[in-house]
């Protein structure tokens, strides 16, 4: 989150934490004009507000001209128009209870929509603030069960947010170890550590059971801690605990045995009796030591009970939540330790990035059932979300003073549901990304710097893409600022949005561009390049057709790779293009081993799925001749393009026009289209990378129907940054030209080297 310096319209002043908000409220409570379906979760110290809103933003649309009787030579290929589109977005805001009145006032002033009559409320504080909310907002407060909301919210984030779940490992290089979403999230155990502990077994979307609990929880740590140390605040108690030595207060096994209890294999350092050394009236104990001992006592106890319940119900996934856990590395660490100890490593303690929002999300979902939010797929909007621990003083002391303790999560409704590619070998272990930048500090440094250096250029291009707009420069600068700040946050908190990857960096940039109404900065470039490439199509086909079979196969693959060099996303290419020396640099010497694929005899594939990359030469002169060859071999082709724009990648709607124009020139393509042997589909993605676990459902259905037995993934984003190691059930071909010298070094090659990875799954 960044402070842009504008004064809030209703906040009294700046800097004062009393009842004002240090951030401009319109930066926090966004899109209130169309907000509806409010839900609020008021906890002991934090309030979480949720609402549904619509966002109007610009999208670039392409439309084919009617070329009949016109001089197509000098006309652009198609028309680009910028249109307003309305999409659904979920807003979640977390703030301290002290701001509640100010926040309610602000919402009241900006709430134009009058349809809303009810606000769903949950959490212990919902009672206390009921009258205030009803008075301020004029909405009727409708209370929802805390645990039901929690579970609903938990299911929602587990299903919709990649890298929602993480294991915490304090003493490893990567404190936060994120997990890919498992295709089947049930059953699991949710251990909510609030003032007490609730242990809930969740079996399906609607079926969950409270299987147990414990009265020794966060309230015990806080209450008993306050009595023992005279420290009043929970956070301060944790601070004390992190500085203490529990061995001064606890009786250890070695205090009883003099060493380990070897018969049972109990280490001498294990706690035999918590507070067992304070059994004396005449000794003073330090606050820190007592707090630490208390923390261990409570964490161990909860971990032990959680393991006993997990064992009884035969579960191995335990998610921990509640204020005791929320954003506190100290408690995540002790709970993780305890679970490891008591389960002997068989059960993993797992935590959730948006744990604090579960109740609000659940309450919201309860109230939004008529909008069927569960029927859609949702995606985290990196531009509008604060990221993990944005307000944690432990991790990011600067943040707290800078922006108060506001934290936001925004989720965009995706047009269509996303599912796994049915051809993934093992969806539960599939990891799209090739390099984990959270893990790899060197790589992280390189890529963050790389994105920083490219930023000015991206902002410039964005501004240039809208020459008619009077505020394009201003918006481009705002985009630059926002993305710059995101990059700085990620330098300090690489774990902020899950595992940091080149993909997440690219996606965040796209989200930020959209945020400032630069829906498709490359639209004109793509239009021009598509036009030029189309003009060359026929001559390329003619020259290919003149070659012998074997030669032609080489030429086709060479063409595929050569086409892929044109990529405005890659800095090296942009530089080379300026100097017109691109083709001479490409190290495209095809290795004989490639011929295993190219020259294969035997029956053709039933159906090939091709994930296309760039517009222009890539799709038209590289991919289409290849498609044409496959079709003439008798292989059906599903050509998958992005649903939304990303860099100069060809979009689904552009691909429709391009294909139409090619069909007009080429009878093979034309008949394939007519006979539905060539099918164009959208991926469901607007990313320059490819997550095979989140693809458009229509694509997945088609892949299954057509018995797809070959997958071709093209381009750096889709075949190298992601999916390089993806294992599929069928044959696959991953090809790209390395357009980044650092990456080329990493992979042991030179810039503009070719990656051609043909894999046949072992039977």
């Amino acid at each position, binding site marked *: 989150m960044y402070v842009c310096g504008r004064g809030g319209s209703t906040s009294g002043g700046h800097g004062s934490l009393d009842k004002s908000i240090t951030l401009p409220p319109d930066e926090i409570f966004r899109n209130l004009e169309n907000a509806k379906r409010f839900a609020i979760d008021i906890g*002991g110290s934090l309030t979480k507000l949720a609402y549904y809103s619509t966002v109007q933003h610009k999208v670039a649309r392409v439309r084919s001209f009617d070329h009949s009787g016109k001089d197509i030579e000098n006309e652009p290929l198609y028309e680009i128009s910028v249109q307003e589109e309305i999409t659904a977005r979920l807003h979640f805001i977390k703030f301290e209870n002290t701001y509640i009145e100010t926040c309610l006032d602000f919402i009241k002033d900006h709430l134009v929509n009058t349809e809303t009559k009810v606000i769903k409320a949950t959490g*212990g504080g919902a009672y206390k603030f009921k009258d205030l909310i009803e008075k301020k907002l004029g909405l009727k407060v409708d209370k929802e*069960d805390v*645990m*039901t909301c929690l579970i609903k919210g938990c299911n929602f984030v587990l299903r919709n947010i990649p890298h929602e779940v993480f294991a915490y490992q304090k003493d490893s290089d990567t404190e936060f170890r994120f997990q890919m979403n498992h295709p089947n999230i049930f059953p699991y155990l949710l251990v909510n550590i609030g*003032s*007490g502990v*609730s242990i809930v077994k969740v079996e399906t979307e609607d079926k969950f059971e*409270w299987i*147990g609990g*414990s*009265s*020794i*929880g966060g*309230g*015990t740590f*806080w*209450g*008993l801690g*306050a*009595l*023992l140390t005279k420290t009043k605040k929970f956070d301060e108690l944790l601070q004390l605990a992190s500085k203490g030595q529990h061995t001064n207060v*606890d*009786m250890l*096994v070695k*205090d*009883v*045995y*003099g*060493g380990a*209890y*070897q*018969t*049972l*294999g*109990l280490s001498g350092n294990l*706690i*035999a*009796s*918590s*507070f*067992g*050394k*304070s*059994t004396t*009236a*005449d000794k003073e*104990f330090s606050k820190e030591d*007592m707090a630490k001992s208390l923390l261990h*006592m409570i964490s*161990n*106890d909860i971990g*032990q*009970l959680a393991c*006993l*319940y997990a*064992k*009884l119900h035969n579960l191995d996934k335990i998610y921990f939540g509640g204020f005791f856990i929320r954003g506190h590395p100290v408690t995540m660490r002790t709970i993780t330790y305890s679970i490891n100890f*008591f389960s*002997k490593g068989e059960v993993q303690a797992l935590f959730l990035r948006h744990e604090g929002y579960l109740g609000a999300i659940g309450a919201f979902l309860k109230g939004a059932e008529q909008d069927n939010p569960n029927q859609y797929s949702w995606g985290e909007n990196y531009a509008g979300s604060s990221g993990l621990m944005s307000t944690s003083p432990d991790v990011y002391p600067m943040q707290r003073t800078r922006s108060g303790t506001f934290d936001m999560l925004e989720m965009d409704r995706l047009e269509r549901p996303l599912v796994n590619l049915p051809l993934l070998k093992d969806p539960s272990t599939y990891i799209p990304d090739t390099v984990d930048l959270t893990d790899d500090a060197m790589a992280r440094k390189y890529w963050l710097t790389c994105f920083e250096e490219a930023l000015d250029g991206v902002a410039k291009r964005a501004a240039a893409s809208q020459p008619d707009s009077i505020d394009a420069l201003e918006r481009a600068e705002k985009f630059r600022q926002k993305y710059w700040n995101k990059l700085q946050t990620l330098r300090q908190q690489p774990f902020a949005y899950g595992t940091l990857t080149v993909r997440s960096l690219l996606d965040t940039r796209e989200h930020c561009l959209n945020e400032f109404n630069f829906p498709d900065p490359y639209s004109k470039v793509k239009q021009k390049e598509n036009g030029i490439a189309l003009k060359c199509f026929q001559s390329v086909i003619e020259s290919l057709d003149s070659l012998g079979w074997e030669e032609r196969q080489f030429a086709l693959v060479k063409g595929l790779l050569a086409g892929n060099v044109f990529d405005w996303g890659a800095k090296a290419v942009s530089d080379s293009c300026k100097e017109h020396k691109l083709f001479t640099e490409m190290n495209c010497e095809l290795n004989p081993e490639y011929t295993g694929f190219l020259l294969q005899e035997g029956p053709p594939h039933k159906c090939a799925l091709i994930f296309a990359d760039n517009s222009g030469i890539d799709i038209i002169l590289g991919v289409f001749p290849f498609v044409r060859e496959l079709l003439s071999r008798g292989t059906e082709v599903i050509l998958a393009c992005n649903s939304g724009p990303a860099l100069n990648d060809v979009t689904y709607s552009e691909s429709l026009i391009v294909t139409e124009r090619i069909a007009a020139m080429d009878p093979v393509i034309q008949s394939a289209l007519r006979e539905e042997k060539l099918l164009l589909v959208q991926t469901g993605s607007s990313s320059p990378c490819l997550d095979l676990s989140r693809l458009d459902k229509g694509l997945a259905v088609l892949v299954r129907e057509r018995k797809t037995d070959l997958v071709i993934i093209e381009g750096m984003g889709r075949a190298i940054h992601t999916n390089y190691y993806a294992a599929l059930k069928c044959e696959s071909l991953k090809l790209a030209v390395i357009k980044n010298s650092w990456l080329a070094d990493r992979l042991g090659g030179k810039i503009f080297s070719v990656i051609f990875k043909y894999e046949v799954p072992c039977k």
Partner: protein
Amino acid sequence: MEPLRNGGGAEEKPRRRGAAADAGPQRRRSSAAAGVDSATGPQPHERGGSASRQRRDSVRKNRPLFPWFGLDIGGTLVKLVYFEPKDITAEEEEEEVENLKSIRKYLTSNVAYGSTGIRDVHLELKDLTLCGRKGNLHFIRFPTHDMPAFIQMGSEKHFSSLHTTLCATGGGAYKFEQDFRTMGDLQLCKLDELDCLIKGVLYIDSVGFNGHSECYYFENPTDAERCQKLPFNLENPYPLLLVNIGSGVSILAVYSKENYKRVTGTSLGGGTFFGLCCLLTGCSTFEEALEMASHGDSTKVDKLVRDIYGGDYERFGLPGWAVASSFGNMMSKEKRESVSKEDLAKATLITITNNIGSIARMCALNENINRVVFVGNFLRINTISMRLLAYALDYWSKGQLKALFLEHEGYFGAVGALLELLDSA
């Protein structure tokens, strides 16, 4: 075991104890937690036994020499059981060395030793036959921090000259082994505490408590009015879950005399109750802490389900009286200022007890055992905890689990150590 090193005429006395004890406890464990099994227990140190010694041994009918002690050195308390032979013949009386006699007189004619040692007279087992000898079994305890004084006393009373074997269990058997050797010139026979515990429980239950049942339970534990203590026949004890609440807690699943496993343990035990009470109330003895607790009201300290939901939380079938958050009310400054020390002591007791009950219940479910026997000195003079355990187990298991208690609460380890001494003979 090292042969005893000094003491003039001692050579004439048999010194065969060590090797016998070396056979070591036999048991099977299924718990994965049980690691290395071999490192503990006395190591065999056979001294070339002479024919004459063996002859004398057989004359003595394979009985160890008096005095017969069993020692259990825990984290907080030392438990000592002493067998006082009552069938001493005139001849024996005459033969009895002065040191031995003085120990016997000292222990049996006093009920308190020094400022902290206490004999639990009410637990004394009368007319017990052990190894063919009739006598009384005495139960003595003192704080572990007085262990050096105890060893000192042993040294002053020339205990080592008696050439008896001192069988000891509990962590202190290991921790103080060196002190026994250097200060008291005594070699301990170290025994595993869980082996001893089970042995002791089974034995005492089998001999009964001076004609009464050793084991008891609370009938109608959920009804304060009708709740009463009743004897329980533990004739077929297996399987049972044994929960030993000392400073910390150990939970064992016992399937037969020799087949048991330690299921788990928790560090929230008697030491935690007492330790927290000392910090919260400034009390200095366990008795004082319990006394305070008996006058306190924990509901002022704890946040109950009804404090949050106004009544029962029906969605989850939680009764309003259940504790939702132990010490949960103490998050508020006003409430912190309004509670008494007694309230805090009571809340501490309830918290620890409920937690032990909860863990024991989960273990019983996981192990598929429905009888849970609670032992350990945490339960001494602690009716509040025993009733609460009985109540909690009954209520949360919907009557499926039964909480059982034993009269000799914390002494089973020491009894087991004594039995090892006799068995080894």
